[in-house]
Structures are given as C-alpha cells and as structure tokens.
C-alpha cells in the first residue's frame, strides 16, 4: 500500500513538473500569437491558423524523431537527407515505374528505416561519434537521392497519394491527423514502455545504463530506426503536399527540427525533456516563419533567422539550467 501511494505521488509530481516546465514555452507561443495578430489582421483567421498547423505537422513529425535521438544523448544530422530520400524513392517509383501508391509509400518508409539502421550501426557498432557518423551518412544519402532523380524535379502524383498532404477529413487537413497520431504513439512509447525508460536512462548516463543491464546498442539502433521512419513519413507527406519531389527537399528541414527540439526544452546532453515540448517548439518555429511571411520579411533571410533562433534558444536554455543548478545546490 505505502509503495503504491509513493508511486502515485511521484507520478503526480512529474506530471505537474512537466507542465511547469512547458509553461514558459506555451506563454512564448501565446505571446507570439498576440504580437502577430496585431501586426497582421490575417493571422488569427481560422484558415491561416489551420494552414500553420497543417504546415507545422511536417516539421513536428521530423522533430519528434530528432527528439528521440537527442534524448539518448546523441544527434542525427542525417534526418534532413532521409526526409529527402524518403520522398524521392516513392516519387521515383510512382513516376518512373508506375508502382501502386501503397507499395511506393511502403518503400519510402523502408528506406527511412534502413537509413536509421545504418546510422545506428555506425554509431553503436563502429563507434563513430553520432554527429560525425550521421553527417557522413547525410552526405552519402543526399548523393544517392541526387543520383536517383538525376537532378530532376518530379511532380504530379496520383490523387490517392496526394490525399496524405492536401485532403481534409472533417474539415481538418490530413497532415494534422498524421502528426497527432505520431505524437501520441511516440509519447506512449516514451512514457509508458520499457523502451522509453531505457531511452531516458541511456541519455542520463550511458555507462550507468549499460552497467545496469540495458543493451545500449540495441536501444540506440531501434531509436535511430524510429527516427529514420519518422523522417521518411515527414518526407512523404511533404512530397504529397507540394506535389513535387527533389533531392534537396529536406536540406532546409533539419535545422528548424533541431531548433524545435532545443526550444522544446530537451537537453542536448540527453536524458531530459520530452516530445510535448518539441511540439510546442515546432509550433513556435512555424508561427515565427508564418509571421515573417505575413510582415513581408525576405525569404532569402530564412536560413539566417533560423540559425539565430537556434543559437538564442540554446543560450537561454543553458542559462536557465545553470541558474536552476545553482539553486539546487
């Protein structure tokens, strides 16, 4: 009995702690919304909000995968390239070989899983530092994607494929459903399964996790496969939404995804954070992007702005952590 009450208390505590942790981010999101609604009368229109959520779905899916990796204390710099090739493979299959849509999609997902497996092996078995292993894989994957499409842009896909990116069900765009389902699944895995526990344990202290009997290599490989599949899902939805595919589609997606993870409060050292924060982080990134469009900022500056945001986010994050650490002592 006493055991149970203790457990219940700790659960309650962690839930409220989660909420407290996310509160500043939710406030920032709200504040951005208020500012933008003053700057542009279009911002709060249902259509614009729906549009933001629909566009944000894709980075959210990608960022959820990156969150898993960062929680283990690693990084995946290849997810942008996996995003590209995850869209390129089904696109090429549909356009060049006229393969049926479901099989093409499945092929895309398998490619994502395979790239995740490669990443996991490079990092756990070859023991490359994750940032170097995944970066090397990124370069190779991008090269393969270029070679598959021979540098062309393919466009115009069957309606059944475009359903994923543009259709609405109950007046809500399909990408929002996909992102929501993905979020729920990943949240459940992290919070309600042993695998989730192991991911957190590994990120907090990989050596301790290994010594306490966790098969660290296997956890890492599974996590990278999940991230690879999620990147492919995001890539497929994006190709379906914009109705075209090319080898560099995902190049600009990686940085905002990492920014979303950092803004979402997941520690770059692993073991701390979660997917709820990442969703808020991705929404913040999308709202900023939308806001820049609405106020007419040059799109050429986007890369610069994302870079600045990511640095600011890590600086703020690190400062807050330090202050918290000092108080704890």
């Amino acid at each position: 009995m006493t055991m149970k009450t203790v457990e219940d208390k700790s659960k309650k505590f962690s839930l409220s702690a989660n909420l407290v942790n996310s509160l500043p981010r939710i406030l920032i999101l709200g504040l951005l919304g208020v500012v933008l609604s003053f700057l542009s009368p279009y911002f709060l229109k249902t259509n614009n909000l729906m549009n933001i959520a629909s566009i944000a779905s894709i980075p959210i899916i990608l960022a959820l995968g990156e969150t898993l990796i960062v929680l283990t204390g690693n990084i995946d710099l290849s997810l942008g390239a996996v995003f590209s090739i995850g869209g390129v493979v089904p696109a090429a299959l549909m356009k060049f070989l006229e393969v049926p849509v479901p099989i093409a999609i499945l092929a895309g997902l398998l490619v994502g899983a395979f790239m995740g497996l490669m990443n996991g092996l490079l990092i756990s078995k070859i023991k490359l530092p994750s940032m170097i292993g995944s970066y090397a894989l990124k370069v190779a994957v991008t090269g393969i994607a270029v070679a598959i499409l021979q540098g062309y842009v393919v466009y115009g896909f069957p309606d059944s494929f475009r359903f994923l990116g543009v259709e609405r069900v109950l007046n809500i765009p399909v990408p929002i459903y996909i992102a929501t389902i993905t979020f729920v699944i990943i949240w459940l895995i992290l919070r309600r399964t042993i695998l989730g526990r192991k991911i957190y344990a590994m990120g907090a202290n990989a050596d301790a996790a290994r010594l306490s009997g966790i098969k660290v290599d296997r956890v890492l490989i599974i996590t990278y496969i999940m991230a690879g599949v999620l990147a492919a899902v995001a890539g497929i939805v994006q190709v379906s939404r914009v109705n075209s595919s090319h080898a560099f589609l995902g190049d600009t997606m990686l940085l905002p995804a990492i920014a979303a993870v950092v803004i979402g409060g997941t520690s770059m050292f692993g073991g701390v954070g979660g997917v709820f924060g990442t969703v808020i982080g991705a929404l913040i990134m999308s709202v900023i992007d939308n806001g820049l469009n609405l106020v007419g900022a040059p799109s050429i500056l986007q890369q610069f702005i994302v870079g600045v945001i990511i640095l600011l986010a890590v600086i703020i994050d690190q400062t807050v952590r330090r202050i918290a650490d000092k108080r704890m002592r």
Partner: protein
Amino acid sequence: MQTIESTKKNRILEGAKKFIKSFPPLTWVVILMIIFFAIAEPSFFDIGNITNVIRRGSSLWMLATMATLVLISGGLDLSLGSVLTFSGVVLALLLKAGANAGIASLAALLSGTFVGVLNGFLVSVFGIPAFIVTLGSMNIFAGLSIFFTESSAVFISDPRMVFFGAGAILGIPIPILIAVLIFVVSFVMLHHTSFGRNLVAIGENETGAHLSGVNTRRTTWLIYVYASTVAALAGIVLSSRIQSADPTVGVGWEFEAIAASIMGGTLRGKGRGNITTTIIGVVLILVLRNGLNIIGVPVMWRSAVVGLFLLSGIIIDVTMRRRE
C-alpha cells in the same frame, strides 16, 4: 664494430617500419586509386591537371588542418565551410564598393575571426555542445552570404587579388605557399608549444586537464578563433583564385575537411590526432573528385560515389585503428 653497425642498420629498419606504420591505412588506398586513374585515363598525369588539383587542394588542406586541430581538442567545427564562403563574399563586396585590396582582405579575415570568437565563446564559456553552436553559426553565415550577394556570384577583378590567387613566387603557386605556411605554423603550435600540449590534454580528458591547471576555457576559445580565421584565409585564397565569390561555394567543404581529417587518422576525443597525415585524407578526396571527373563519371553520380567512398573510408580507418 660490426655489432654497432648492425644495430645501426636495425635502427634504420625499425625507423623505416615505424615511419610506414605511422601512415594511416588509407595511404594504400590513395596509391591504388592514383594507379587506377592513371591507367584508366593517362591524361590524369598531365601537368596542367596536377597543378589544377593542387591549386584547388590548397584551400581544402588549410580547412582540413583546422578541422584536425579542433577535433584534437575534442570539439567539432561545422561552420568552416560557411566561414570560407562568407569571407569571400565580404572580400568581393568590399572590392566592388571600391575598397582597397588590403583593407578588403583584412576585413574578410576579421569576419572569420569574428565567427571564431562567437563559436569559441558559446562552446567554452556557455558550455553548449560544439556541434549545435557551429551548426547554428554555419547557417547564420551561409544565410548572410546568400542575403548579401542576393544569391548570385560577385566577381573579383582587382589585379592584386587575382595575383594572390593565381600568381606564383619562384614558380610555386601562392595558394600552395600559404597552405604550407599554415601547416608549418599549426604543426609547430601543436607539437612545440604549451598551447598545443594543452589542446591535446583537453581532447584526452577535459576535466583532468582543467584540474591539472590548464586554462581549458581560454585554450578551447582560442582554437575556434584560429580555425575560423584560417578558414577565412582559405576563403580569400579560393575566391581570389576563381575570381568570384559564390554564396554557395563552401557548401559541403566542412564535411570534406572533417572527413579528410578522420581518414588521416584523427580520432575524435582521443587527443591523438595527427596533423601531418591529414594530408593523406585531403589527397584522397582530391584524387577521387578529379579522377571521377576525368574518367567521365556523370555529374549526378559523382556526389553519391564521393559520399559513399568517404563514409566507407571513415569506417575502414576507425575499425582498423581499433584493432591495433
């Protein structure tokens, strides 16, 4: 007498063995590759082609030397390629605005120093992981390069800069002289100064180095400043040589530099990187790129071949080293 002579011989033999062993395993791959390309296409050995390769190689070598120094200190610099681009853009735009060549070069060089100060500050003082700091600055300065040039190349016609990039002193092209100079300075710094020893100590064990009195913060900061400044110099050399500043010229260079460094035997965080053999990695990349071009591999396949080759090169090197 005889024994002394034989030990002398033994010593020479052992020295030679040691010398050969100190080469990274990929040296043999490079030699095989050169033979392959030379047989497949004899024009590979044309003096024009070789000079061309070496000229292009000087900027990459400078960058790879810097990547090695940063890796030896246990860090990582993904912004080197962006710095290379950005300094070229600063140079070209200032020249276009009518600035003196010397002033423009100095400003371009300082732009690199600035990025290094920023990177080093965030890594050493704030303790933010190097890959995320340099990923951020990589995008900031790539973005700024595109913004300032409105995403089109800016030409450089100033005769002094053109001489700097394409000229020669005593028959040796200036870019190569600069690259060799940078290598010598870096080598001396790494192996014959306390700064270099501190760098290795930090790479092996940062906490240990800190506890034994090394100013880890300052050393880490300085190495990022040095790396970025030299990357900017490489950018000045490159843009002077091709007589234009292209806002995307440096994309991927940071990877080639890091890959060259790892294939040359730099194991991250182990502090036993070898700044000399980095050149093996550089030569491998240059030979591969040039060879693929010369034997007529289609452009679209080249990046895939290079990427896969470098990936397997890194894997081979790391696994073989562990076996030792």
